């Protein structure tokens, strides 16, 4: 298993290099201009000077290798320095600088991580918590009214876009009932019970909107996987052993059904770090998703490139984790 993991990690290096280059080319070659968003009153000569100072006019390959060097060498050094306090990064080390804010992209990402993890992460967990029992009961009572209702709701959750449910939630719960705020406060710090309640109130709507969407997806997986296993002979064996129905379903069927579901869940974890562009926008959460979309809109190549590259790393990593998890969970699979 260890050699397998190491081999996969080594293989990931050329993959990631290739991905980073493709992302760079796509971002670079698409028509985007960091000065396009400026008011028409700013004259063309000034725009040209701004572009020059950002280094936009350098050759593409120079820009790419510059970025790559900063990404794989300078930024990790800064990260280590930040974590440990060791003075490993040379004083003059430059970092990846965003065109929009003129500040290090990594700082922006770190700043946005908390709200993204709070909202998207919790919604993922909530989604899983809702989805698993629904999937299990739907499969166990296939074609019952519960199953039909679950199918209907998950179809709804899957097909109704979050910008619709989000705005609907805001109109009902923020505007008409006034229960929850419609604007997320990223500066809020949880220090005690009361501030925790405030935090709970402000995340509940985005979490439910995203959670519903996640739950729809996962509950379908869970149901299908349960159905596959419920008709297996070993379930009959378990019943013949005289086990209670609870043990049969929850221990025998569920544990086997969870194998594919767990890997699907692991594969979707990078999306949690990626944020949820639309939901973040609707609730003004301003997490990673919003960072990315604003960067794309304003032609902020270094930010787009860095955020996409981190996604790519996470996706490759969680693919590996999913594969390893499969091996851990399913004794029939061994990587040697």
């Amino acid at each position, binding site marked *: 298993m260890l050699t397998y993991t190491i081999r996969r990690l080594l293989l990931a290096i050329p993959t990631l290099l290739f991905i980073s280059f493709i992302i760079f080319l796509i971002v670079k070659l698409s*028509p985007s*201009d960091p000065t*396009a968003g400026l008011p028409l009153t700013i004259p063309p*000569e*000034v725009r040209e000077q701004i572009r020059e*100072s950002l280094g936009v006019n350098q050759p593409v390959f120079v820009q790419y290798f510059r970025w790559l060097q900063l990404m794989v060498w300078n930024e990790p050094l800064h990260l280590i320095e930040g974590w440990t306090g060791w003075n490993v990064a040379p004083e003059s080390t430059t970092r990846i600088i965003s065109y929009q*804010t003129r*500040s290090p992209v990594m700082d922006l990402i770190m700043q946005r991580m908390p709200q993204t993890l709070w909202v998207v992460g919790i919604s993922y967990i909530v989604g899983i918590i809702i989805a698993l029992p629904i999937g299990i009961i739907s499969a166990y009572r296939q074609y019952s009214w519960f199953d039909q209702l679950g199918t209907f709701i998950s179809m709804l959750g899957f097909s109704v876009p979050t910008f619709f449910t989000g705005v609907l939630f805001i109109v009902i719960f923020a505007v008409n009932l006034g229960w929850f705020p*419609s604007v997320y406060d*990223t500066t809020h710090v949880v220090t005690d019970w009361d501030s925790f309640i405030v935090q709970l109130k402000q995340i509940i709507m985005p979490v439910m909107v995203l959670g519903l969407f996640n739950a729809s997806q996962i509950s379908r997986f869970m149901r299908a996987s349960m159905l596959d296993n419920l008709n297996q002979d070993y379930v009959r064996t378990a019943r013949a052993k005289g086990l209670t129905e609870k043990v049969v379903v929850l221990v025998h069927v569920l544990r086997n059904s969870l194998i594919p579901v767990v890997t699907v869940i692991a594969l979707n974890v990078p999306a949690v770090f990626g944020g949820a562009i639309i939901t973040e926008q609707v609730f003004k959460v301003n997490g990673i998703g919003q960072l990315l979309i604003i960067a794309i809109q304003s032609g902020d190549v270094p930010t787009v490139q860095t955020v996409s590259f981190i996604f790519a790393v996470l996706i490759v990593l969680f693919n590996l984790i999913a594969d390893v998890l499969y091996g851990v969970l399913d004794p029939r699979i061994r990587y040697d």
Partner: protein
Amino acid sequence: MNSKTLLLGAAAAFMLSPVAAMAERGSSGHLNIIYWQAPSTLNPYLSGGTKEVESASLVLESFARFDDTGTMVPWLAADIPTVENGGVSEDLTQITWTIADGITWSDGTPLTAADAVFTWEYCTHPEGGCAQASYFDGVDSVVAVDDMTVQINFNAPKPFPYTAFVGSESPIIQAAQFAECLGARAPECTDANFGPIGTGPFVVTDFRPNDVIEFEANQNFRYPDRPYFATVTFKGGGDAAAAARSVLETGEFDYAWNLQIDPTILAQMEAQGNGTVVTAFGTSVERLHLNQTNPDPALGDLRSTVEGGPHPFLTDPIIGQAMSMAIDRALLVEVGYGAGGQPTCNVLPAPELYASTANDDCLVQDIAGANALLDEAGYVDTDGDGIREANGMPLSVLYQTSTNAVRQDTQALVKQWWSEIGIDAELRNIDASVFFGGDPASPDTFQKFYADVEMYTNNFAGVDPEAYMANWRCSEIPGPDTQWQGSNIQRFCMEEYDALVDEMATTADLQERGRLAREMNDMIIQSYSIIPLIHRGGVSAHANSLEGIRMSDWDSELWNIMDWRRAE
């Protein structure tokens, strides 16, 4: 505008605080502002966007500002320098500002002339990429005569010298804080760019780029009773409708900016009674440009160039006049702009001094009159297809604009009205990033103008129209030899007009400048190469509990935030 009115304006700005005697600094508590486009930095020299400039205006200030009427008021300066008071030299090449007494930075150190000199050096450094460099155009040097006196020398006579250090776009930054950040090193000073030390009413306590800014009252602010608000949250994100909702419906925020949404929806939100929609009009005008050159594709590379020859019929003002008369501007406002627009007949609608009244006939739609005009000029429908002909050529135009719901509504209405006077229009819309992108290789930019009619909005910053009016000189016509750069989009060319532009460049007297600007405006309008439609304003909303708002489109909307307070 003479020195007297300027001084009066200054006095008025300082006196305008009815409850100032009772209220004290911080007594109004917390203020929530939402800008749905979030600021990415607080250094306006590194980003020219409105959102950055306006958020920075809470902290950074300049010598003079424009109030809600467009009047210049002294801010950090003791008074406004003029030729009369000797602050501007007779030959118009020098202006001298005197810093008012007792102004300190928020860290307690005094503001000196050296800070202004440094600001000029900072923005004009060749490697800095300063977004506001145009405010220092023509500035030869900035000299600190003494600690309190700043002298700006121009390399040519500058009849309107109030550009550098005037308004929110070119504020003074602290030399001590930015000393190490000149030129290419500007982006390395993240702490300074995200938390500039200023002289303004607030200081930054937390800045999160593209997300939120927290401010608190500046304890060293020069007016001991202000600002009335102790803390400010400046939140970004979402969209215009959500920002409007958070002020007008849920009441979570006190002030929301740039609410360009469907006017009926905005009116419904306002009807809830939580807040008020406010507007301020600057110089933005949505207009039609009628191509004076021939865009016929058969001309190949000579399309829409002076060399390609004049337009077959749009150079006749009669046709342009009929097209203008056929348009019901009030209906266009009602459908697309609501409180954010007013019908206008001038390409230069403000400030008041420069606004002509000679063309106001266009405010009333007159289809019958337009038809009569065309009949009289001999443009009649000879082949019975409902479209008039000029010298055998049907009056059929290609009408293009950027992709935008309001613009497409406008296009459809105008097409309908034109069809009623026998002019056929083919509609086309182009993605804004391409249309305004200025790529010389693209055939679809507004500069290339490969169409007969195009529509967009333009304006100028500040209050002086000299540079704006110079846009329509003959030499500004875009063409292949200038990489299609040039601001005379409709390819208008008149010697008399160019002469007026030259005259304005050497005229210092304000009244005289006003006359010249009005004359130039009328010349363009009566050539019917530009048909103005809507005078567009900024639309914001504030909670009913918020007092003291004097929204301005000439400066930052938040220019007088120190006077904002919570109603008792």
